[in-house]
């Protein structure tokens, strides 16, 4: 079994032992999203227009919520040293950590989003495209977030710093994610937006594992 698969298996097993950690993130996502229709009132047109933006922002904050602990627990309990000493590239281990994070946050958030989209009055096309943008875009959030988590390792008040680092880097993904839904709803077709969203995800995939590995080595010193 490769280090990549072994690490994902270990992290998923740990999440299964603490389903509450994932539950809190998903509950936050639902609560944060549902506050908007409650606060704004039954203005269906307005709600449908802001739906994608609200859901994307809520997904971003929910992902951030769980990112802080991504490497901190490994750092504290000494398993980070074992990762640094594992044979094979550390970049792959970094990618494995982000993948495990996406499986327990990005993936369920994406699948939950259309249910919440209904409460905003999004139409069928909008719901499908929204789910699709989140599925394509949320891996970027896990990767960029993983970089933030690795860079803030060992820093006091890492959580706030993490948000400051990660949020600006996620702006392009946010813009094209919400843009795709708007374009689809207005009938323009979302394929351009989705292509750019996928390109951003690939760019993150091609760069962040190296940066995360470098940051982890630095933290290990």
């Amino acid at each position, binding site marked *: 079994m490769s*280090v990549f698969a*072994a690490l994902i298996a270990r992290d998923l*097993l*740990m999440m299964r*032992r603490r389903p509450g950690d994932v539950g809190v993130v998903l509950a936050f996502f639902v609560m944060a999203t549902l506050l908007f229709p409650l606060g704004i009132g039954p203005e269906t047109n307005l709600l449908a227009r802001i739906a994608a933006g609200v859901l994307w922002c809520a997904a971003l904050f929910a992902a951030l919520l769980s990112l802080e602990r991504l490497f901190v627990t490994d750092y*504290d309990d000494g398993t980070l040293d074992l*990762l*640094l000493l594992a*044979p094979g590239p550390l970049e792959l281990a970094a990618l494995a950590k982000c993948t495990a994070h996406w499986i327990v946050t990005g993936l369920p958030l994406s699948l939950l989003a259309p249910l919440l989209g209904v409460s905003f009055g999004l139409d069928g096309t909008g719901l499908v495209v929204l789910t699709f943008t989140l599925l394509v875009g949320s891996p970027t959030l896990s990767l960029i977030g993983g970089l933030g988590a690795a860079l803030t390792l060992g820093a006091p008040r890492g959580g706030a710093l993490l948000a400051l680092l990660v949020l600006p880097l996620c702006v392009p993904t946010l813009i094209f994610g919400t843009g795709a839904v708007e374009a689809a709803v207005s009938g323009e077709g979302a394929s351009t937006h989705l292509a750019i969203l996928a390109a951003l995800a690939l760019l993150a995939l091609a760069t962040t594992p190296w940066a995360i590995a470098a940051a982890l080595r630095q933290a290990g010193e």
Partner: protein
Amino acid sequence: MVAPSLSVEDLACRRGGRPVFAHLSISLAGGEFLALTGRNGSGKTTLLRALALLTPHEAGIISWQGRDVAEAPEAWRGRLAWLGHADGLKGDLTLTENLVAAERLRGAGTPAAPRLDAALAAFDLAPLADRPARTLSAGQRRRGALVRVLLSDATLWLLDEPANALDGPAQEALRAVLQRHLGKGGIALAATHSALDIVGARNLRIGAA
């Protein structure tokens, strides 16, 4: 096969911009044990981390069988077993799951059940194997971490305060395991405050002026 030999020449390390030690030389052959002693902050942990290439060293050469380990760091990492200050156990996983995960992360695959049982038995942990690590005491977790080292089958053991939190019988078990490792031609370095009573142990006092 060439007999294992570790040689460190003229090693110098800094920690937080401050020099910790310099001109440190070590030469160890198979079957030898080196106890690193010295006051708190004298650089025992730094030396062990430098040997594992976790911390860069400022000057000097670490070589294994006459070859600089920096040339093939991956092969070097595969030769060592590491026991740090922290135990490297995940609190939510059981002891067995922790050990299996650690072996897989080493790229060694799932250990066979008899081998795992024998390693657990060496530290008298068989009855606790299915308990989550967070429910174990500090000494029991330390023993669990030592089982991980034993299970790795690595030639070179780098141990940072291995006897921390261990009670009398556990220290005895550690001594027996170390002695067996050395008997098989392995090498071990341990930063330690308590004498481990290893036969033929050498001692290096770091920071002795």
